[in-house]
């Protein structure tokens, strides 16, 4: 990672949301951002003791926001998520769950990302999300 990317990752991992769930960022590149979350650190549980669906939605938004901020650099700020559309395909019950965000379209004011949520134990796709974010300049 470049120094700027490392600084961005350190800032994210030190934020209240990432600390709350022990979120780490194993990958942050031009094309994708990956968040990793150990299930044991998530107290908010859902069906069949999985990670709560609201938490899954939030971390999908967080992965998208981190990717956008990385791509913007000093030229803007990744704003709040304005919309999420998420399909829950299977309960997120793996020991570690990853959230992989890819950019679908980055415009001047709005960006749209796609996020895959997977169980790292067996690669099962737990959820698929599309997230829209504001860009502040």
């Amino acid at each position, binding site marked *: 990672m470049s120094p700027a990317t490392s600084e961005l990752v350190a800032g994210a991992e030190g*934020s*209240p*949301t*990432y600390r*709350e769930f022990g979120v780490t960022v194993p990958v942050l590149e031009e094309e994708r951002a990956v968040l990793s979350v150990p299930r044991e650190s998530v*107290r*908010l549980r*859902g*069906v069949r003791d999985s990670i*709560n*669906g*609201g*938490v899954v*939605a*939030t971390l999908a*938004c*967080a992965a998208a*926001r981190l990717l956008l901020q990385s791509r913007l650099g000093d030229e803007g700020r990744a*704003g*709040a*998520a*304005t*919309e*999420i*559309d*998420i*399909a*829950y395909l299977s*309960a997120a019950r793996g020991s570690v769950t990853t959230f992989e965000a890819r950019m679908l379209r980055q415009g001047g004011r709005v960006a749209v990302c796609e996020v895959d949520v997977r169980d790292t134990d067996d690669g099962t796709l737990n959820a698929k999300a599309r997230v829209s974010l504001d860009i502040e300049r």
Partner: protein
Amino acid sequence: MPVQSLAEWRQRWENEGAANLKVRPVEVAEGYAQFVIDLPYGDERDGDLDFLNLALSYAVDVAALAAVIARVDPEREQPNGTASLHLNFLEAPSEPVTVEGRVVYWQVPSALIEVVATGADGSLIARGVSPYSLRAKAPEGAAS
């Protein structure tokens, strides 16, 4: 279904994780549930866009689920999980937010829940819909 007493219902939704988000259960009726997020936090969480998203998304999720549970007929149906969520975040909240889940369509195998989050002045904070998966229970004595 017969709805639990309000005290029992609130107890069901109170836990350490929800308390950390300041999300608390308020009201329940058939096919309806209401939660409140007691913002602001008064610390660094107020400036964290992801954390505000977390509180809203969690409250939306549990409001939808609680509305389903408050509607399901335990002798004929059982909840099977949230199928999807479409949610628009309209305003960043800074004051207490009321989050309501309401069953607007009910049919096995899929119900539809409307979720609405409003600020203290009635302004719309977030709005969405969430299809929820249901299963029919086999009649007692029937072969499975």
